[in-house]
């Protein structure tokens, strides 16, 4: 039973970060119809920012977290402004391929700058685990969970309560109608891409002290983010949050009770299973796009 609860807790911590990763991707798809293959690279970018600032420049970890989010926002907004703005009306396949080009460039830039060796980011928290009722939880992971939940709530408030969120939701529903009522759709796109990228970058920075930082970490993150988003239905933000927790729990229990070797394959099997059984996503109320 303790084992079961332990896996449940581990899965929940991981799930909170998966949810962050997933909502960033689904937000970008929902509003812009862009399948962002570079999402995982922005996650890796955040992790490398944390590494550079904390390990190399001896900066405070919490400052590094905020800087990672800010730089992610800037980078994402620049990608949108410099590249996607030129091809908004092209078809979805071409935009996908352009984002794959961005992914290749970013990943190899990381490889060139930092080499293939895994980097370690030191945690600012004590090493020994807290034990509650027989369940072990390291303070770092506890912080990750707390921070992720705060970010999820903040994101929810921005989307549901702010003027920016209102404009985003309007663009999501009908771009032309949003334009008519005075929404600057171009700016919404730039901000959407920046916000989604920023979420990916801060997730990377949050998880950097938990795992190690490698140039290929973005690949897996991208593909997991796709699995999460498919679970929830593309463009469905609440679905992506639920999908994040669902995928993490499926992975955690799958690895514990079925096979660790195929842990990372579980996400893809989930995608294939969802596509066969329920192509619109498990939590989808809206019709699918594509």
């Amino acid at each position, binding site marked *: 039973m303790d084992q079961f609860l332990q896996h449940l807790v581990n899965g929940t911590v991981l799930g909170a970060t998966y949810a962050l990763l997933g909502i960033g991707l689904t937000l970008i798809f929902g509003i812009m119809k862009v399948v962002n293959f570079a999402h995982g690279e922005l996650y890796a970018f955040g992790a490398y920012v944390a590494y550079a600032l904390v390990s190399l420049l001896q900066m405070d970890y919490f400052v590094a977290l905020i800087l990672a989010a800010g730089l992610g926002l800037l980078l994402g907004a620049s990608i949108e402004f410099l590249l996607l703005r030129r091809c908004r009306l*092209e078809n979805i396949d*071409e935009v996908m391929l352009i984002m794959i080009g961005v992914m*290749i*460039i970013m990943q190899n830039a990381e490889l060139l700058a930092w080499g293939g060796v895994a980097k370690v980011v030191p945690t600012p928290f004590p090493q020994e685990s807290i034990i509650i009722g027989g369940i072990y939880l390291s303070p770092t992971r506890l912080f990750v969970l707390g921070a992720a939940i705060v970010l999820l709530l903040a994101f929810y408030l921005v989307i549901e309560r702010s003027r920016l969120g209102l404009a985003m939701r309007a663009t999501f529903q009908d771009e032309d109608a949003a334009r008519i009522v005075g929404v600057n759709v171009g700016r919404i796109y730039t901000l959407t891409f920046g916000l989604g990228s920023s979420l990916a970058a801060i997730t990377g920075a949050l998880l950097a002290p938990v795992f190690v930082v490698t140039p290929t970490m973005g690949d897996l993150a991208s593909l997991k983010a796709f699995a999460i988003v*498919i679970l929830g239905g593309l463009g469905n933000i609440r679905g992506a949050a639920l999908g994040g927790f669902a995928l993490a729990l499926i992975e955690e229990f799958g690895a514990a009770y079925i096979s660790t070797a195929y842990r990372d394959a579980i996400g893809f099997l989930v995608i294939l299973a969802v596509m066969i059984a329920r192509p619109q996503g498990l939590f989808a109320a809206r019709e699918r796009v594509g």
Partner: protein
Amino acid sequence: MRRLSFLVIVAALALLPVLWPDPYLLSVVAAAGIMIIAAISLNLLLGFTGQLSLGHAAFFGIGAYTSALLSLGFDVDLGFSSPLVVAPKPVWVAFAGGIVMASLFGWLLGKVAFRVRGAYFVIVTISFAQVMRMVALNWVDLTEGPMALVSIPPLSLWVPGEGVVRLVSKASTYWLVLAAGVLAYVIVANLVRSRIGRAAIALRENEVLAKSIGIPVTRCLIVFSVLSAGIAGAAGGLYAHTVRIIDPDVFLFIYTITMVIMVIAGGKGTLAGPVVGGLIFGLLPEMLRGVVAPEVQWMIYGALMILILLFMPKGIVPAFGGLLKRGRISVRRPSATQGASS
């Protein structure tokens, strides 16, 4: 006239080992040729049916692994009382087995993936390739996992006066790849001009309209998926028996991307496109080798892909093909072909 120029080009390519017997050059061109065959097969889906399949390396890998394993023989415990033992098969039989296995998976993936379109289709195909890679990595009893399959036997051929020759020399490998490439090209050229090929182009242009005039859309897509997978499997088999060592890296996403870049750069939906794009992106790494680091080389690839998509979205062959206009069978593609759902 067109047939004549085709024969002249093939004859010129066939004479290359005689005119320029540089083993390094021949092996580089042969390696590019294998990727060109894979790109030709991807073009069937990407160019002629308009479906962006990003799991194509999986069929290449399945062909390579099946062919290699059948020619080496294997025994594997499937959980029954006695393990499944397969004795080594003649190499050509193994090669055919690889094509059949890849086609089967093409059928299977087609059945699943063509239930959806657009972004969903792309993600399903990627997932499929990733699952295949995980299987190749983790099913060590069968595939040796990251330790790779080694000493794969080469293909051999009976030549009049010489007897059975093992195709190991650079020139014979080159001719083998060239022959396979020409065969793939001719098959694809005839396919896309056939009834089903025209049906595929119709559904690429407007799926709803194609359906409304009675084209069995899903069946047509699955036929293309099977043929495309089979040709990719053949390319994988050629790779396995010429390089003679394979590891799970053949399933990497980056190989699919290489094929996609070749098709897009050359011109998707044109017959010559994958060949032109394949020659450029197959030989470019060799020219860049030693000049820049491999990471920079990949960054150049990525940047070129973005530039081509932004400024020459139809590819090189249509852009420079004004003179050879009669050779084109591609129809100008309107930008709004998305949105049709299954």
